[in-house]
């Protein structure tokens, strides 16, 4: 850890390391996660899922399941009172399969029983007659194959064309790259409790990223008015994009409606892997040409993303992958073609980094090839091409905000390197716990990578967030539906209120649908969007308080200010000096606001347009030790400099950086859902490998603070950048240590030891 203080301020304001209100309970095991939910008289829900990647359903017989003692209901698609489809934006996914199943794990029926074991037996007793079909599993064949869904097999095809793509510099490098299917692998499996209400509606407590979107989908499928479906946030054990789509919400509510009893559903770990979307696997081809000095002349890319059986957010993942395919580099002439397709593989959607992760692995490998071909240092070649404010993106958009690419490169490269492997602690050698490799076998490599992406949604999406602030005798209460998924919004909301209102005590009301939507906790957007809404609401309350004080003293409110928790006048003659808590005894100030960012625009037929609100970048340098005979890897250190706009809570930023690097390391070296015939072979934390504390490297971080114009407090979202360029930096280091091409992640030991990575 380099330049970030790690001391806490219990009740901090903006810029301080305020303590998380949920931190203590989580550490002590007292925090109630959604899996802990309980209601008297509740039943247990369970989902029956397809064992086939593609099959016709001939018949479903539920009679035997209904005869099992303790079973209260068995529901299928036939029981849905209204819409039979759901989906984050496009409703292309059946709540329960009707005539066909399109992936292994697709819900077919759900049961409610008085005990989990009875529910399990009931699912086993449901007799579904399938007629298996030949599944469409190769994404390269999907576009031309017969459609496996009425909406066709192409989710989106996006071409970005700028300048003269046939222009050529004297140096040309080309490569094909592949990214495996990563899972978000959060710790707290999907869980929720649906409670039927006296008014015919439903109350649903659930771990999710976006309460209001879930509500809309539940209401549509249950045939209820949206206000009859009331959601509140259950304790969330991680999300990373996997809770943006509905999982058990509709099933639980339908069962609650049918049985008139509370329904609890908790997924097992295996079901969790089947029940949420994953990161899109990608096949990417790129060709760069450059002048002899390494300055880019042209860029071409073809990006194929496997979206699996249903659309989810594939449309937008294609946009991000294509828009950011060249990386944070200036290039005048480009042709980038992205396509996302439907297959009978598990559905893919949002995951931290969202399209930018896949292309960053490819463009950074290309930049290293270019550096080698030009005889230029990898850091230097990135500096020579670095985007900056005023430059154009591939989409023609001029960068108006901050984007300190050159600075993050320089600052990451300047961080100190770790000691050489000879003197290092044996515990840090390859082999996890450091026991198999010995120093004589170890080779060290260093790799560098830079990545960027947008913040918030794009292409004209009308994004907003609502917040309410209430102030009464110095106690502020903030209400916002932003889902706390671990990122620390709850801390920031309190810091913002303390800063604007000059109070110490800030209550955060539960996140629920009693207020307007806060949008999703995704796309690195909540600090900006809901932080902006909370700031705006608090400022409205502050203005009302100052008006009240001004009215009582017969002065202009413009003369009043709040400093260090006191209302004072800028005009010394007024002699006003009141604690905020005493400034308006018994008066309640309450304001509810909506916050919106600036308008963006769709992309045209050439993929050109002012589509993105703001951009963010980071650079990573990785140091790895490799035992090449065994293919054993030890990531020794990752150093990073990240563009954060302004760090509102440096310690929380560091938490995001360390967690994002862990996830990037996972994709680089071990995390992959292995499929065979569309079936996930490793749906467990025994076989789906995520890094442990012992696998994590030392992390050095520098926060680059160049406040973003238009952003609340100048802050940018910080959640995604650590995952984007950490993976390619680690793989670049592996290439440096082994001389292998390593064009696919995750890199497996045999790719290094047997040369399979050529």
């Amino acid at each position, binding site marked *: 850890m380099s330049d970030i203080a790690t001391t806490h301020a219990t009740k901090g304001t903006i810029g301080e390391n305020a303590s998380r209100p949920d931190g203590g309970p989580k550490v002590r095991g007292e925090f109630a996660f959604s899996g802990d939910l309980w209601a008297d008289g509740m039943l247990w829900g369970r989902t029956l899922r397809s064992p086939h990647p593609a099959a016709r359903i001939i018949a479903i017989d539920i009679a035997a399941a209904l005869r099992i003692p303790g079973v209260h209901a068995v529901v299928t698609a036939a029981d849905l009172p209204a819409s039979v489809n759901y989906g984050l934006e496009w409703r292309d996914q059946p709540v329960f399969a009707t005539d066909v199943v399109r992936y292994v794990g697709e819900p077919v029926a759900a049961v409610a029983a008085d005990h*989990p*074991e009875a529910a*399990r037996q009931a699912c086993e007793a449901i007799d579904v007659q399938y007629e298996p079909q030949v599944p469409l599993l190769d994404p390269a064949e999907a576009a031309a194959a017969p459609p496996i869904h009425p909406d066709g097999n192409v989710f989106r095809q996006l071409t970005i064309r700028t300048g003269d793509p046939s222009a050529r510099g004297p140096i040309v490098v080309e490569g094909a790259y592949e990214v495996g299917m990563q899972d978000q692998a959060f710790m707290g499996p999907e869980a929720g409790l649906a409670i039927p209400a006296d008014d015919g509606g439903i109350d649903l407590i659930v771990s999710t990223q976006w309460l209001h979107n879930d509500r809309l989908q539940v209401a549509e499928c249950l045939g209820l008015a949206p206000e009859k479906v009331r959601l509140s946030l259950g304790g969330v054990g991680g999300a990373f994009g996997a809770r943006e789509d509905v999982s058990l919400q509709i099933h639980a509510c339908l069962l609650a409606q049918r049985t008139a009893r509370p329904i609890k559903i908790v997924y*097992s*770990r*295996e079901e969790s892997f089947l029940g949420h979307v994953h990161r899109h696997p990608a096949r990417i081809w790129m060709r760069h040409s450059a002048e002899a000095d390494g300055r880019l002349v042209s860029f071409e890319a073809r990006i194929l993303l496997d979206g699996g059986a249903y659309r989810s957010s594939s449309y937008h993942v294609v946009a991000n992958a294509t828009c950011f395919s060249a990386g944070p580099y200036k290039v005048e002439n480009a042709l980038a073609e992205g396509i996302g397709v439907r297959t009978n593989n598990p559905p893919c959607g949002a995951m931290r980094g969202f399209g930018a992760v896949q292309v960053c692995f490819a463009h950074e490998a290309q930049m290293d090839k270019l550096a080698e071909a030009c005889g230029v240092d990898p850091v230097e070649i990135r500096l020579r091409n670095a985007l900056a404010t005023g430059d154009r993106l591939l989409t023609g958009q001029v960068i108006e905000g901050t984007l300190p690419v050159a600075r993050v490169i320089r600052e990451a490269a300047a961080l100190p390197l770790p000691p050489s492997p000879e003197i290092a602690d044996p515990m840090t050698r390859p*082999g*996890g*716990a450091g*026991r*198999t490799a*010995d120093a004589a*076998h170890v080779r060290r490599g260093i790799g560098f990578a830079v990545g960027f992406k947008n913040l918030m949604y794009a292409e004209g999406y009308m994004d907003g967030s609502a917040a309410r602030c209430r102030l009464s005798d110095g106690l502020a209460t903030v209400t916002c539906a932003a889902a706390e998924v671990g990122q620390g919004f709850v801390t920031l909301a309190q810091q913002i209120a303390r800063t604007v209102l000059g109070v110490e005590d800030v209550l955060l009301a539960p996140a629920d649908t009693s207020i307007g939507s806060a949008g999703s906790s995704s796309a690195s957007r909540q600090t900006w969007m809901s932080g902006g809404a909370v700031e705006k609401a608090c400022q409205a309350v502050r203005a009302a308080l100052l008006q009240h004080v001004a009215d009582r003293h017969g002065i202009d409110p413009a003369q009043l200010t709040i400093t260090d928790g006191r209302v004072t006048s800028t005009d010394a003659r007024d002699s006003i000096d009141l604690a905020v808590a005493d400034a308006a005894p018994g008066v309640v100030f309450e304001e509810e606001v909506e916050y919106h960012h600036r308008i963006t625009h769709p992309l045209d037929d050439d993929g050109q347009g002012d589509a993105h609100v703001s951009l963010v970048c980071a650079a990573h340098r990785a140091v790895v030790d490799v035992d090449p*005979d*065994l293919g*054993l890897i030890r990531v020794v250190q990752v150093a990073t400099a990240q563009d954060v706009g302004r760090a509102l809570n440096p310690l929380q930023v560091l938490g995001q950086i360390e967690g994002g690097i862990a996830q990037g390391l996972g994709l680089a*070296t*071990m995390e992959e859902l*292995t499929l065979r015939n569309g079936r996930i*072979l*490793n749906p467990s934390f*025994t*076989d789906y*490998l995520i*890094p*442990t504390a*012992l*696998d994590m490297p030392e992390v050095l971080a520098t926060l680059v603070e160049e406040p973003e114009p238009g952003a609340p407090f100048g802050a940018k979202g910080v959640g995604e950048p650590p995952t984007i360029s950490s993976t390619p930096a680690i793989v670049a280091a592996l290439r440096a240590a082994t001389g292998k091409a390593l064009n696919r992640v995750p890199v497996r*030991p*045999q790719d290094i*030891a*047997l040369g399979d990575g050529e």
Partner: protein
Amino acid sequence: MIPASFDYRRAASADEAIALLTENGDDAKLLAGGHSLLPLMKLRLARPSVLIDISRLADLSYIRADGDQIAIGALTRHHDVEVSELLAREVPLLPAAAGQVGDPQIRHRGTIGGSLAHGDPASDLPAVVLALGGSMVVRGPGGERSIPATEFFAGFMETALAADEVLTEIRVPRLEGAGWSFQKFNRRAHDWAIVGVAAVRRGAGSGANGGGAGVALVNMASTPVRATAVEEALAGGASATEAAAHAADGLDPPSDINATPEFRRHLAQVLVRRALEEAGA
């Protein structure tokens, strides 16, 4: 992840455990640390109708010298093996390997007897006891018998234990200064070995426990297995490198998401070479 239902009985003595096994036959399983059995039950790969809990039989938890050998009670926890001063002095291979079983929580619950009786080819300790030339002391209704490690592992998760027998003690010969090595390859800390090697090299004819090499492999066959081709090559005067080339001879290593058979053969050769080099001549 909830096991099928089962009856639970707690045995107060080894004899009571044997009586309960005799009474319940094949449907019963012994529960010691539970760290091998319970995961299988949760996956419903094992569905015993009766669990006989022997974890409180304190008289089966010990490590003591007995002539040329060290005797270890079957209920001795991995952690106690790992920190035993007697073993560190007399059979350091065993605590070195025990210290690599799972993670600290597992090592404080799991037992050496449970690990051996489970017969999992991916477990570390069976290969270690094979390489050491150890033996198992088992007790049944008819009394006690000793089974050499080489005859103990009968098939995939099957041992020579009869349905009514309890493994009570593991005996391993003192190393008497012989060289040894334990090599464990996994992609991530705390995981099972993808391939592992335990090796012991004694000077020819030296000491009461004889000469020669013992080399055994983790996760290279359907049982914990001795690398007999390596041992024979060494006996014939081969160098470590020459002998290691035979590491996978005659073996049919498993294929799973962690490694292909081809990669396992490669790993076995590299790890056996390193193990022999570390163990010395």
